[in-house]
């Protein structure tokens, strides 16, 4: 891990509202978390124990990485549709096998935009916002946690 680049990244986000950064390479994983959400609050971050703020761990193997959930690497924006369930995300209707929506489709409040599958049960993600899909924030089959942004609208 190039510590100079890491330092430059920290400097770049200092003063912004970013609170959680995760960087993952083949040989290392770095998670950085601010103690408080307030931008520029260096003092409060400095007084918290170092351990929970900077955790440098080595991945045991690529297989280990693939089984891990890397939640919330995307910071939720106001037009994001977030997951209200925990499980594996799918854009496809399990009955019809057709995609609920594609890129640039327009979604209305109340539309089912995906399902989250866990323990053999499919639970729907229902849009609470309207807009045009600009990007899918998670891959097909990707594990998602509660509150994780899945689809971005404009």
């Amino acid at each position: 891990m190039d510590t100079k680049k890491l330092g430059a990244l920290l400097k770049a986000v200092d003063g912004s509202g970013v609170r959680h950064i995760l960087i993952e390479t083949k040989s290392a994983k770095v998670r950085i978390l601010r103690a408080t959400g307030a931008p520029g609050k260096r003092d409060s971050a400095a007084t918290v124990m170092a351990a929970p703020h900077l955790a440098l761990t080595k991945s045991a193997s690529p297989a280990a990485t693939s089984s891990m959930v890397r939640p919330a690497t995307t910071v939720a924006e106001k037009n994001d549709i977030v997951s209200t369930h925990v499980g594996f995300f799918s854009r496809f209707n399990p009955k019809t096998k057709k995609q609920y929506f594609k890129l640039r489709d327009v979604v209305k409040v109340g539309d089912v935009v995906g399902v989250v599958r866990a323990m053999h049960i499919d639970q729907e993600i229902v849009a609470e916002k309207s807009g045009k899909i600009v990007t899918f924030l998670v891959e097909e089959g990707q594990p998602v946690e509660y509150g994780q942004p899945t689809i971005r609208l404009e």
Partner: protein
Amino acid sequence: MIRKVLIANRGEIALRVIRACKELGIKTVSVHSIADENSLHRHFSDEDVCIGEAPSSDSYLNIPRIMAAAEITGADAIHPGYGFLSERAKFAEACDENGITFIGPTKDIIDKMGDKSSARENMAKAGVPIIPGTEILKDKDEALVAARRIKFPVILKATAGGGGRGMRICENEAELLKNFDIASNEALVAFGNSGVYMEKYIRNPHHIEVQILGDKHGKVLHIGERDCSIQRKHQKLIEETPSPFIDERIRKKIREAAVRGAEEMGYFGAGTMEFLVDDNGEEFYFIEMNTRIQVEHTISEMITGIDLVKMQIRVADGEAIPFDQKDIVFRGHSIECRINAEDPANGFIPNPGRITGYHIPQGLGVRVDSHCYMDYSIPSNYDSMIGKLITWGNDRTEAIERMRRSLAEFTIEGVKTTIPFHLRVMDEKSFLDGNYHTGFLESFKF
């Protein structure tokens, strides 16, 4: 072999389990609600999953969400901690059905020991003393016969009652005859059911429990007893081991009874048998069994050096307990004070908020199990525990002195805490004499 444990809990116990897993080389997954975004446990685990909104029903009590978190992370075992789902048979069942090792006893054992009547029946079979009592009494005559068998004082209880309501203490036959009709009528008015039953009334009881550890190969051991008599509304505040109240004869009997009871159930894992001891220190009675790790497991660890959480995991993995009863050495004395964000000067009202100053006591024989840190905001959605302060000493005097020193050193600013209360108790005569019962707080002036 267990490779990855999901901890279905939060706060200090989640950290406790994570630490044990790390020492065993086992990966960890934590779950958290959105109210626990800044909780330490999610940052200590290898992976973490947000499972829901703040209310426990949406998060820490939500079995489908927790099982889903286990599925997406590939966890092959779940540790339930204490509270929440730790004694929910349905949770153990869900783990079984999904091929996940539940770090605890079987669903059947949880069911049997969770049902008061069934637990008493099973303990009686094992020759464990239970509080003498009756079924619903037909009339005064039957009540008299029962009271002569049980011996006064007795207490009449409404079968549909609870929360201390519908109870009448009777010191003799005249009082019993007078109170029987009153108790029946009160029960009918309050609960719509006039049925009353009788139990022996234990005056000024002492709450003494025994730590049990069993494995899947039939071995059951005790890890000593704990005196947990200082309580408020049935919530323990201070625990110590060994109990300063009972003598060695009763200590031996109560420990052996607990092992017998656990053997009768085929118990494995960590569990605690709870007893009431009468004020003479001569008679003891089984009240219930907790089929999980307890908050106060720490003091048993301090006097034996046995890591109970690691043993829970190893036992769940099918390992045999690698020592026998005779190998356990009980050394010294240990005390735990539960430090809560509560105002003891104001009826112990919860006082969540942001911690603006935090320094934990340190030194030989001092242990702090806490999930809190400087700038941490204690959420109002869950219990008010900040942490547990545990001291060990070569004897009780040293453990108390060390606790006094540690409490004075423990600095928590920004929220009110129970530290001042504990400091006062450490100077209270009945505590220092080791002669206090569950009514301690009623006469304690703070």
